[in-house]
């Protein structure tokens, strides 16, 4: 893992990657960073993808979102970054009510979140390196700090060799890892990962999960939708199960399937 040789900054400003390598310690808090209250989402075609959902995620939590295909997992995540607006109910991210904040503050909220989209959503005409760097550039990060940060996060996900390729020149798993790198690089407070290991082989899958666990231990809240029963069951984290738009289960230290 290549890392910046910069002198360790004060704790408050410590980057995710610095903290990952043990140069900074994790803050501790019990504030709720994600709150959904009585949320219903009806799409224009009438489909109710979420129904009366209540969910509170305290800072530093690791939550698995499980449920069958079409249950509403991605819809929930879209609400969190205000890609869609809730039809009913309140969505609060780190104190900001997404339906109330002015439009120009929306990007600021989104930058607190690192999101891995289920369909990756890579910029088709930019290289892997540029796709990842983009998340830093839009926050006005100076160029000299962008370069080392991107290089090291690409090393973390194992894409150093593919840095200059375009998304169309990547394998499925490489695209997915690019999306993961982009979600991590800007040091977000919350990471939302929608099926981040669907295209990865078991070895890399586990590496990515380990990475997310380490990041989580540093105080970053993680919300991960997955169909990988093995991983969920093995980790014994909080599991929120959706079915047909409703939360049917919300247990701490749980498995993929209900255990009664």
């Amino acid at each position, binding site marked *: 893992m290549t890392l910046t040789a910069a002198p360790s900054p004060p704790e408050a400003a410590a980057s995710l990657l610095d903290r990952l390598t043990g140069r900074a310690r994790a803050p501790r808090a019990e504030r709720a960073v994600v709150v959904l209250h009585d949320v219903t989402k009806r799409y224009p075609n009438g489909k109710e993808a979420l129904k009366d959902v209540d969910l509170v995620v305290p800072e530093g939590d690791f939550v698995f979102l499980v449920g069958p295909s079409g249950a509403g997992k991605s819809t929930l995540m879209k609400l969190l970054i205000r890609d869609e607006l809730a039809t009913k109910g309140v969505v609060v991210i780190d104190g900001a009510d997404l339906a109330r904040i002015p439009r120009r503050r929306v990007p600021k909220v989104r930058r607190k979140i690192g999101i891995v989209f289920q369909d990756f959503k890579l910029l088709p005409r930019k290289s892997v390196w540029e796709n990842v760097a983009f998340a830093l550039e839009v926050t006005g990060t100076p160029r000299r700090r962008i370069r080392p940060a991107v290089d090291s996060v690409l090393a973390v996900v194992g894409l150093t060799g593919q840095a200059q390729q375009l998304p169309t020149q990547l394998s499925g798993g490489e695209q997915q890892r690019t999306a993961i790198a*982009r979600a991590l690089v800007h040091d977000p407070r919350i990471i939302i990962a929608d099926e981040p290991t669907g295209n990865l082989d078991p070895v890399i899958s586990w590496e990515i999960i380990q990475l997310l666990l380490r990041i989580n231990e540093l105080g970053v809240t993680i919300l991960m939708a997955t169909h990988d029963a093995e991983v969920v069951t093995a980790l014994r984290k909080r599991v929120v199960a959706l079915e047909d738009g409703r939360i049917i289960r919300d247990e701490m230290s749980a498995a993929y399937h209900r255990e009664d």
Partner: protein
Amino acid sequence: MIPFVAFSIGRAWQGFWRNALMSLAATLTMVLMLTLLAGFFILQNVLLASLSFVEQKVEVVAYVQTTATDDQVQALVDRIKAMPETASVEYVTREQALEKFREAQQAQGREDLTKYLESNPLYGSVNVHLTHPQDLDAVTTALRDDPIVRNVLNIQALVDRVVTVTSIVRTAGLAMVAVVGVIVLFIIVNTIRLAVVARAEEIEIMRLVGASDAFIRWPFVFEGALVGLLGAVITLALLTAGAEPLSQAAVGFFNVLPLQLGSVGRDTAVLVFATGLGLGVLGSWVSVRTYLIR
């Protein structure tokens, strides 16, 4: 601020070349449209110059009494010259008039009737060229009111004709330039919109990863500006290359109608640059807006 501008310009440059096919298509459209506009602008100037040339040919002729003294005639000429409606005034004496008449008759192969005469039967005349033929009335009245003027040649019918034709041609020319201008505007904005629409997905992704509006908009605006500038430069290069042979070809025309085109070259350059750059920027701004307001 400066890093942001540098970022935007860098990204615009990338965007332009990564989308080369689309960008070049847009630039080509820009070039063609600007050429059209410049062509029309020049044409309109030639037209206007031609029309004023024709109009300056309108001449009011006032015959002077044989009894008028040189001083009186000079006073009349000065007075008319001072009028703002007058372009130029010329005094033709009786002798000059006879001389002209003889020449004209001879040229037409007619027998010279004047040789049968003992005295000169013609009158001296004050010939006035008008700046605008519409002013005929004012000048005619001023001439007629002078006691030494015998009569003023009635050319109202001719003038009406000229005024009708020139004003229609002038209006038609203006209308054409306006129509072409509007078409150019729409086409360029439309082309840029098409290019932006094709990248709607890209804009969408930028929004979702937390890019603020400025970070999304300005690269596109600069890219539009790039298309506009490049289009303008190519257009001007084409026009400059074409100017020499074209004006060579038109030399006959300019000989027949000795026109003054003055600063058309500079004006055209300014027009082309302003339009290219302006529409490029405007087109991107408006097109990107559609995707930001959400």
